[in-house]
């Protein structure tokens, strides 16, 4: 590569080294110690990992994160795709609709969490004001979003379905970039909407969808805990909406067990890499089959 190319890459490489690789190294090192930021670190070897293995709280957080990713990612991708296909054309109010679809992502996380805290309020929140009478007619209580474990997890998933702005924007651009005459041809050949979706749109969007799937899996496994913290504080007990990130935050910043938290982070990282690897292999195979 030419020397100028190296010069241009330099800022990115420096950032990569200083902001990603070095902190990563420090975290892995920290995972093998006990460190409270006040006194010097103490070498523990694998003790943190052994303790994590037996920690119910960690197991719960791990399961929560995996289940969340397994459910939320396909839903999010599906909703983003559906909205993108609905709103990519120039039509009456389509521009405003697109803005509305992308807007929740732009809201700061704490504000987003507080908003949903209000929406989910069992007595006064709009959601249960509407669902309450409906559910009561069926003889059951309205969902107890903030106090029942299953409902609380559903609440967190629900909250994540609206922040699809990034994927939506990418999919709209991808769809608009698809060749117009392919669709005109399909029209002339009298293909139904479903056929067009299945045989034309989906295969042509497949590369983009693959990338978004991997990316969203990574992001969902490392789910920011701010909304969960604001809305449910990691409960209802025990730990039903404590995700890995919240577990790490708690142990590090509330209990001052940075080494322990770092160990949890390392496991989180390993899991994420595993998930990405599995998906990448599957996608590569799919591409192979098409050849």
């Amino acid at each position: 590569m030419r020397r100028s190319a190296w010069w241009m890459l330099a800022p990115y490489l420096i950032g990569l080294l200083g902001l990603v690789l070095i902190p990563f190294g420090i975290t892995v090192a920290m995972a093998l110690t006990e460190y409270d930021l006040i006194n010097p670190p103490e070498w523990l070897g694998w003790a943190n990992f052994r303790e994590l293995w037996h920690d119910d709280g960690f197991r719960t957080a791990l399961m929560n994160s995996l289940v969340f990713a397994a459910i939320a990612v396909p839903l999010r991708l599906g909703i983003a795709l559906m909205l993108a296909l609905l709103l990519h054309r120039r039509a009456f109010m389509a521009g405003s609709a697109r803005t509305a679809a992308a807007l929740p992502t732009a809201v700061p996380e704490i504000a987003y969490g507080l908003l949903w805290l209000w929406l989910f309020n069992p007595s006064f929140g709009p959601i249960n004001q509407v669902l309450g009478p409906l559910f009561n007619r069926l003889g059951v209580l309205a969902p107890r979003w903030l106090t029942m474990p299953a409902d609380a997890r559903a609440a967190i998933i629900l909250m994540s379905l609206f922040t699809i702005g990034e994927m939506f924007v990418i999919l709209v651009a991808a769809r608009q970039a698809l060749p117009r005459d392919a669709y005109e041809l399909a029209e002339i050949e009298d293909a139904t909407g479903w056929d067009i979706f299945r045989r034309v749109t989906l295969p042509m969007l497949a590369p983009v969808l693959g990338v978004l799937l991997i990316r969203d899996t990574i992001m969902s496994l490392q789910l920011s805990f701010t909304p969960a913290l604001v809305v449910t504080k990691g409960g209802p007990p025990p730990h039903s909406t404590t995700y890995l990130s919240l577990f790490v935050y708690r142990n590090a910043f509330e209990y001052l067990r940075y080494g322990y938290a770092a160990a949890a982070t390392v496991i989180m990282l390993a899991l994420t890499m595993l998930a990405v690897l599995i998906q990448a292999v599957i996608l590569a195979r799919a591409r192979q089959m098409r050849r």
Partner: protein
Amino acid sequence: MTEGGSGLRLEDVHARHGVHGVGLQVGSDELLAVLGPSGAGKTTLLRTVAGLERVTRGRIYIGDRDVTNLRPGLRNVSMVFQSYALFAHLSVAENIAFGLIVKDVAKAEVKRRTLRAADAIGCAHLLDRRPAQLSGGERQRVALARALVREPDVFLLDEPMSNLDLELRVETRAEIKALHARVGGTMVHVTHDQTEALVLGDRIAVMRDGLVEQIGTPEDIWRTPQTTFVARFVGSPAMNLLPGDGPLRPAGIYPEPAWLIGIRPEAVVLGGEGVDGLVERVDVVGEDAYVYVRVGEHLVCARVPSRGKPSGRVTVSVADAHLFDAATGRRV
């Protein structure tokens, strides 16, 4: 393969961007070439027939069906796009069979018809490949096979050869003509290349600015162009147009001053009796030479064999001419 198409009839068709009142008819086994410069509205007209553009006034009939307000899928037409519009993620066979697959035709039938269409076009050996692995010419064949396989009422071809190089164009032209002779069907072929139109078309419709200037056999278009536009557009180099009271006129004809005399380069005679002129430029193309002679204040182009190409002072006379009204451009 097909027992003739169903014929096509347009009555005073207007479309939003570029068709301002077109009426024409295409017979059930006729190949109509639609010729014109870019912006003439020929592609728009084609898309209107396909149903991809909306008709704002007038009617379209395929066979005896009024399809003016039908969506494209119901009109039973096939279209070959300029870009071929092949699906990159499907094999050639799947591309050809696309129309049949979405109609849930039985697999055995699909295979049979695909093979037949591919054979007819001559791309049966490519069935397992993908569009990315094909050359331009091969892709065009696949697009044609796809149009063929459905046995539609009307075939529409939108400048299918503009992406090919010259040699391939000549070859493909001949093949399409042979194909049409074999298979029949109502075909509308849009092109901006007049040679292509002259070779392929059973009839030619010359379009300018959303209107059809003249429609007729290639012979008609060549021998009796109805307007100065048609006269100059068809034929290369373009016909010479001189004022009626100019220096040159054909023998025995006494044109009005308000007329224009149209003289094809082939009809200009150099040497012998005639008006004096000065050779300004000579373009030699193989066996032909195009000699540009200044006569009075006009430049006249003559086509002569390159062997005896003149220079300096020559005499110019006219063997054959067309007469047009200068104001309307119409033939007199």
